[in-house]
């Protein structure tokens, strides 16, 4: 009886403490001391996590392989020929070759895009995040800052949301709170891409009647004050939903396999798009040289579309 009373007292006390913490963090937001405490926790926990990851990485690979048994079976036939070649090699060599190929692809991507990057290994995923963020082993000491784009060999992975001296947290494109300005590579139609966890991304084109078909490629689009480089591949359109309605959107399958991230690159020198025009550089037209107003009604429509475009992207988180 006494134990039960003690448990209830403890329940009341801990519940009260939790509610006080919630209230403090809710009121202080990102600027409060709770953010500093969080960063401290990441600083303390990351090295432990990194050491543990180094030890159990083969276990993680094994677990991942179990999770993909279904698709592995489908690929089995195609892989048999390759497997025959690999049987003569040691498993460790095969693993090194895979890592080598992955890093080589990353380097090729960096050279192709002419970017300065910091390579990083993915350590793990914070608990309770369900695929929204990952921790990587590069940080402020290597020049990493909040907002920087993160790439894999196949395309955009996400952006840095938090950085300590030696580690950084990356919000993945799959995060339900991720919003990116993008365009369809084939016809330059612009839109807003949203993460949906394990489901394909949701793309809403700014022009609801714009042409976009399954198979079209979706790439990043630099927008106001963005640090995401322009033209980074994201994925391809696989399906159109709500066609002909105001709630039309497209589903985009990512190029990046977010379950198998092991190496990434943080873009250190992406050119930042200006948030507004520099007033010192604005060229004033000379007196009497103002251009005639447009008379073509089609041009007026085009101007309206541009204005809509600005409004729709103004609320985008990143761009």
């Amino acid at each position, binding site marked *: 009886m006494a*134990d039960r009373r003690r*448990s209830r007292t*403890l329940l009341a006390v801990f519940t009260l403490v939790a509610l006080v913490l*919630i209230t403090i963090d809710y009121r202080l937001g990102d600027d409060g001391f709770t953010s500093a405490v969080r960063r401290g926790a990441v600083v303390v926990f990351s090295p432990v*996590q990194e050491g543990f990851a180094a030890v159990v990485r083969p276990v993680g690979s094994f677990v*991942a392989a179990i999770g993909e048994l279904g698709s592995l079976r489908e690929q089995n036939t195609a892989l048999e020929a390759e497997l025959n070649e690999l049987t003569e090699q040691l498993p460790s060599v095969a693993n090194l070759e895979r890592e080598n190929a992955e890093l080589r692809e990353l380097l090729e991507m960096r050279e192709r895009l002419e970017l300065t990057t910091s390579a990083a290994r993915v350590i793990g995923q914070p*608990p309770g995040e369900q*695929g929204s963020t990952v921790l990587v082993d590069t940080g402020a000491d290597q020049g990493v800052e909040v907002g920087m784009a993160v790439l894999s060999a196949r395309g955009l992975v996400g952006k840095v949301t938090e950085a300590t001296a030696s580690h950084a947290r990356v919000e993945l494109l799959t995060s339900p709170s991720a919003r990116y300005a993008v365009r369809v590579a084939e016809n330059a139609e612009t839109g807003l891409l949203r993460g949906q966890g394990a489901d394909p991304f949701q793309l809403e084109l700014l022009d609801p009647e714009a042409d976009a078909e399954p198979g079209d490629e979706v790439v990043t689009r630099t927008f106001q004050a963005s640090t995401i480089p322009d033209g980074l591949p994201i994925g391809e359109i696989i399906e159109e939903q709500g066609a002909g309605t105001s709630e039309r959107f497209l589903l985009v399958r990512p190029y990046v396999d977010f379950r198998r991230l092991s190496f990434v690159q943080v873009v250190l020198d992406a050119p930042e798009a200006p948030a507004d025009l520099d007033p010192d550089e604005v060229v004033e037209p000379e007196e009497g040289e103002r251009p005639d107003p447009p008379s073509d009604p089609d041009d007026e429509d085009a101007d309206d579309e541009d204005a809509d475009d600005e409004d729709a992207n103004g609320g985008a988180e990143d761009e």
Partner: protein
Amino acid sequence: MILRGAVLALVLVTALLVQTVVAPAAAVAGIVPDLVVLTVLALGLLEGPGTGLRYGFAAGLVVDLLASGETILGTSALVFLLVGYAAGAARPYLAANELLGQTLASAVGSAAVVLLSRLLEVVLGVDGPDLVSLLLEAVGAAAWAVLLAAPLLLLLRGVLTSLPDQPQAN
């Protein structure tokens, strides 16, 4: 008693490390098994409500600290301590078929964590998944619990019985 506390703390830290490093690779349809929640539930079911809520609070607090800035500090701590306590309180009613009952309780507890966390997010005005995705996540968490709870319970029971001082049911 100190040794017992230290071992249980070590169990929780191990669960956190496995959760962050290994568990993401086991995701099915984007749903990752939550080993921290399962460990808290197991501790409640094996040791009673007092242990369940204490370790639930501690585990939840660490989860909140390691989560991204969008997670409000204290939410996981509150949810975990409540389910830890509830698991411990349910223990006397599961005695007839202990392991099966504990496994089912773990499944219900895992789903409850998903739903309670979302409920708190709604109250605090945090964006989250739609109702269908949420229900799928809760069902996925329960399914993972059915798969993993029994081995985890047996493992933890083995660890706890090997420790010198066993606490009274609290």
